[in-house]
């Protein structure tokens, strides 16, 4: 485990050398394949050392973060072409990857918090440094302050646990049972803000829209999953209080997910629509984790991985359109099928995965979540039916507005699609739709 940490640390000097942009991306792919070859034991913590470990959840999420970081570099070729501080950009990406890797793999709860917070700093730098509009300052503020407002009580909770239990090792926490309401709220509030839950979701549309393509990819791909991962870890010792209070969070997220899905139909900005659909998907994930049955955990984990790939791919597609037309508006991006028919294929593949059409991994996640939430209460059938229906609705809405219809007459000329862009989208789509063929390594935990 430490070998990957050192590999990433030594990639940092590589970022500052001349003409090493594509080499860094290739090294990240290389690390991905090295990491996949770790011995994967399902029922336990494996690869344990003094401060690192790997669990089935952290394994999948670390894989996802390395994958998305390497695709981030592939998507940001325009920074390299235009020579816009790409050395520091590479450093930011590698630093963010190190922080995410450490978040998912340290054994100590306080170190988890430390790297959880530390991963905010490079994200903030990415949004404000390379974003496209002046509104990115406000977006960075919202991101930083919503997340900090949630996570400072988390620090209080972790230090309280240390003073009470004299241990912070995540593995030992399963032997304890902390039955305090205030501790429960302070521990999970940070992750609910990060997920995001409905009432504290305002940072997400701002941050996702104003970020550059790499920032949007990493935000949608991994940063939201940090909240899910934290919830999964913290539920271990908060089970009793959760059973008494989980209905609050489930109801807020499901009803909120319904409102957000309806709000998706009103969006004009492509990226804004994708961002709101992220909130709707994550609302189901929160529901699944809070219910605390096995199908709920499985469904939320699968939906986290598949949503990471799918949303990140959709942001790549939105950026492909943005680089050609310099607009994200649905009024201008219409009739694209006339000019980029191959992109239309990729829009359709990724949007069909977004609406959880078979054979995508989203389908498995949503079915598991529907199963778990309906087993918790029959009334959630109505909410889940509406959320799934509306997600199909706005995915189709986005597809048909962008691809079909008359094209905007003010377009001049642009090229159809470079093979780098096709490779980028293929690498997003392939795990999403092919992993359905062997799901037992992400859905059978014991």
């Amino acid at each position, binding site marked *: 485990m430490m070998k990957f940490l050192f590999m990433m640390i030594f990639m940092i000097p590589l970022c500052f050398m001349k003409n090493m942009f594509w080499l860094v991306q290739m090294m990240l792919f290389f690390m991905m394949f090295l990491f996949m070859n770790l011995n994967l034991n399902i029922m336990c913590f494996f690869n344990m050392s003094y401060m690192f470990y790997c669990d089935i959840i952290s394994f999948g999420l670390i894989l996802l973060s390395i994958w998305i970081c390497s695709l981030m570099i592939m998507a940001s070729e325009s920074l390299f072409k235009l020579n816009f501080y790409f050395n*520091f950009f590479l450093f930011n990406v590698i630093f963010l990857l190190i922080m995410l890797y450490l978040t998912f793999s340290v054994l*100590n709860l306080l*170190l988890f918090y*430390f790297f959880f*917070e530390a991963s905010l700093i490079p994200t*903030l730098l990415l949004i404000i440094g390379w974003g496209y509009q002046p509104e990115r300052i406000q977006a960075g*503020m919202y991101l930083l302050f919503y997340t900090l407002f949630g996570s400072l009580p988390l*620090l209080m909770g972790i230090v309280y646990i240390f003073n009470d239990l004299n241990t912070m090792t995540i593995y030992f926490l399963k032997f304890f049972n902390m039955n305090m309401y205030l501790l429960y709220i302070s521990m999970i509030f940070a992750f609910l803000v990060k997920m995001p839950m409905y009432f504290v979701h305002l940072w997400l549309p701002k941050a996702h829209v104003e970020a550059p393509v790499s920032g949007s990819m990493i935000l949608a791909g991994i940063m939201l999953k940090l909240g899910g991962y934290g919830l999964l870890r913290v539920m271990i010792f908060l089970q009793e209080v959760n059973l008494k209070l989980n209905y609050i969070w489930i109801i807020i997220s499901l009803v909120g997910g319904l409102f957000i899905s309806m709000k998706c139909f009103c969006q004009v900005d492509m990226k804004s629509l994708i961002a709101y659909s992220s909130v709707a998907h994550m609302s189901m994930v929160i529901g699944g984790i809070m219910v605390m049955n096995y199908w709920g955990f499985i469904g939320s984990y699968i939906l986290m991985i598949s949503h990471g790939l799918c949303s990140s791919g959709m942001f790549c597609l939105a950026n492909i359109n943005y680089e050609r037309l310099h607009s994200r508006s649905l009024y201008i991006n219409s009739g694209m099928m006339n000019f980029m028919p191959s992109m239309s294929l990729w829009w359709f593949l990724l949007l069909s995965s977004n609406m959880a059409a078979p054979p995508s991994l989203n389908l498995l996640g949503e079915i598991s979540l529907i199963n778990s939430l309906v087993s918790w209460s029959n009334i959630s059938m109505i909410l889940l039916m509406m959320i799934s229906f509306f997600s199909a609705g706005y995915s189709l809405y986005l597809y048909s507005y962008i691809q079909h219809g008359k094209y905007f007459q003010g377009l001049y000329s642009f090229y159809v699609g470079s093979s780098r862009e096709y490779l980028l989208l293929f690498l997003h789509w392939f795990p999403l739709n092919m992993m359905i063929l062997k799901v037992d390594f992400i859905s059978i935990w014991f």
Partner: protein
Amino acid sequence: MLTNNNSNKMFFLFILFFSTLISISSNSWFGCWIGLEINLLSFIPLISNSKNLLSVETSLKYFLTQSLASINFLFMILIKFSLLKNFDMNNIISIMMNSSLLMKMGSAPFHFWFPNIVEGLSWMNNFMLMTWQKISPMILLSYYFNKNFLIFMIIMNLIIGSLGGLNQTSLRKLLAFSSINNLGWMIFSIMISENLWLFYFLIYSMMIFMMISLFFLMNMYFMNQLFINNMNFFIKLNLLINFLSLGGLPPFMGFMPKWIIINFLLINKFYFLTFIFMMTSLIIIYYYIRIIYSSFMFNYFKMKWVNLLMKNNMSLINLSSFISISSMILSTFIFM
């Protein structure tokens, strides 16, 4: 301190250091008072410069407030000697003594002189005022404090330090309000143990030193000056890292003292006070980030008639920002 060819200031600096040592190592309260008075007398020549009217006015204001606090302190010491025979700390006299010491430090609710005076001092004098001048009142505070009174003062410090800085554009006043906020943390730490206070104080003074020397070398006194300069990339990075570290964000060095103080707060079951500590530090981070907007962005406002270019000849500052990043991460591996 870094003077313009005036070596007498070295002499007064030596007396300033010596006076603090007198104050904190004396056996009797009277010796403490003597140390405080010599402190005042030796700081005034350091900050007054008879060619500048603002300097004269500032040193006069400083003299008035500090001497009022000192004479109050002397009076309370004498009352304590004559009236009280016990060592109980929860009485009105300890409140009065603590108030006079808080006024010497510039802590709320006696802080009104502090932003005024830092506005009139140069950066190096500000550094002395914000770090060295706090040592002897702090340590004297720890000898005879009233716990409930000090907890109330901590809350006032935190709130005034965070809310007061929201409408400021002068960098000196911003750092003054941040210093008032950090006084809240320091007063709590000295209630726990002097060792803890020393740890917090050393890291705080190191961070303030890095920032003040950066502003001193760039000759910056106001926020709008941050946006019109073509700052070198490393200067921007340094500014970013220092302010985020001062705000207490991981992974920088400034997170460590705040985390340890939260640890002691929760051990002693001050739950609501911890919440106030956290939320006010959010407000502080807000106005720090407002200062470092210019370092987040790669472009700058270019003025038409004047071209300001910053050369990077501050290798010591770069080393210090490297220490700031790496020390936190390295220390987590040590203290595991």
